[in-house]
């Protein structure tokens, strides 16, 4: 059985994550689009922490008998990997767009210099 202290600590920490994410959205520091995965993480972990029988059942499915909270950690790690992978794709897209912006800017600048005459640099 999962120690009660682990369940309580897990629930508090996961729920705190949900609140922090919501507050970041509220203050325009985090876009909804990028918050959804975090919210899912927080809510699933909160549920797994509070639903102690469920955690035990899931642990048994995977043959984890000695220490059910290991399942909690495994799920947390899974979600964190998902978030990181998602961010890697986001960063890739951003860097592509950044290159494009820099190129467009260079072309525009050249065009502008051309059209205003080359008296100024």
């Amino acid at each position: 059985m999962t120690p009660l202290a682990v369940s309580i600590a897990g629930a508090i920490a996961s729920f705190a994550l949900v609140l922090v994410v919501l507050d970041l959205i509220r203050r325009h520091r985090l876009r909804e689009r990028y918050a959804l995965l975090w919210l899912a993480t927080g809510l699933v972990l909160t549920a797994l922490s509070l639903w102690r029988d469920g955690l035990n059942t899931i642990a048994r499915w995977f043959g984890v008998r000695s220490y059910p909270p290991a399942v909690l950690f495994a799920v947390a790690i899974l979600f964190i990997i998902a978030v990181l992978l998602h961010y890697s794709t986001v960063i890739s897209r951003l860097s592509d767009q950044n290159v494009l912006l820099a190129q467009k800017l260079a072309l525009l600048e050249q065009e502008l210099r051309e059209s205003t005459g080359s008296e100024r640099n």
Partner: protein
Amino acid sequence: MSGCRWQRVPETVELAAAAPPLPGLSDLRRVAIVPALNEEHTVPRVIDELRAFDPGLDIVVIDDGSTDRTADVAGAKGAFVLRLPFNLGIGGAVQTGFRFAFEHGYDLAVRVDGDGQHDPAQLQRIIEPVLRGDADIAVGSRFAAEEGGYRSSRSRRVGIRILATVVSRIVGQRVTDTTSGFQALNRQGIALFARDYPHDYPEVEATVMVFRHRLRLREVPVSMRERGGGRSSITALRSIYYMVKVLLAIFVGLFRRHVVPDEESR
């Protein structure tokens, strides 16, 4: 009924013929904001129809990263063309148009989608409340009329209904079509959206935003045509994502403190 597309062209022709010019419209600097993504086949017609409705209307087409000749054909028709270097999504594209309208000091902006589903002949009805000073933003609604002309897939209608109910509850005014992009705005409306406009699926959040900033929104019954080209940006699976995202944005937005926009802010 579900999945059945519709078309109601005759009424619009009649409207265009019967339309008396709106008094006072010619005194205003006015612009049509036309977001377009791969809509080279419909954009020229939309531009022609806008000119037919009001020759004094400036037209700005925002090409949201099209891979076809959308920007070229719009430019050839004499519209201003803002060509985004990559796809920003409908919210970012439309806001580009609002920024253009704000920076260039337009008094009145209308938003008409480049896919041809908004019939410019019906702009008359949408502009009227804004021109009279009864509204800061007027929205063409497919559902405001009891006759119920609009048909689309069942799931989509249910989604629109849910959003309309939630939004109506929050803003304390009956709003029937929170997803319509067929709009007219005065200077205050332009200023608000130029400064702050939602992304992805913007109209729903924008509706709530309008009320939170104490601007007056009025719905006007319109009929919309079948999309002339391009594809709807909303597919079945994505609509669930949008639904969750939009509801989250709305509810979190309720806990924000807002300021009334002023002309100076950007």
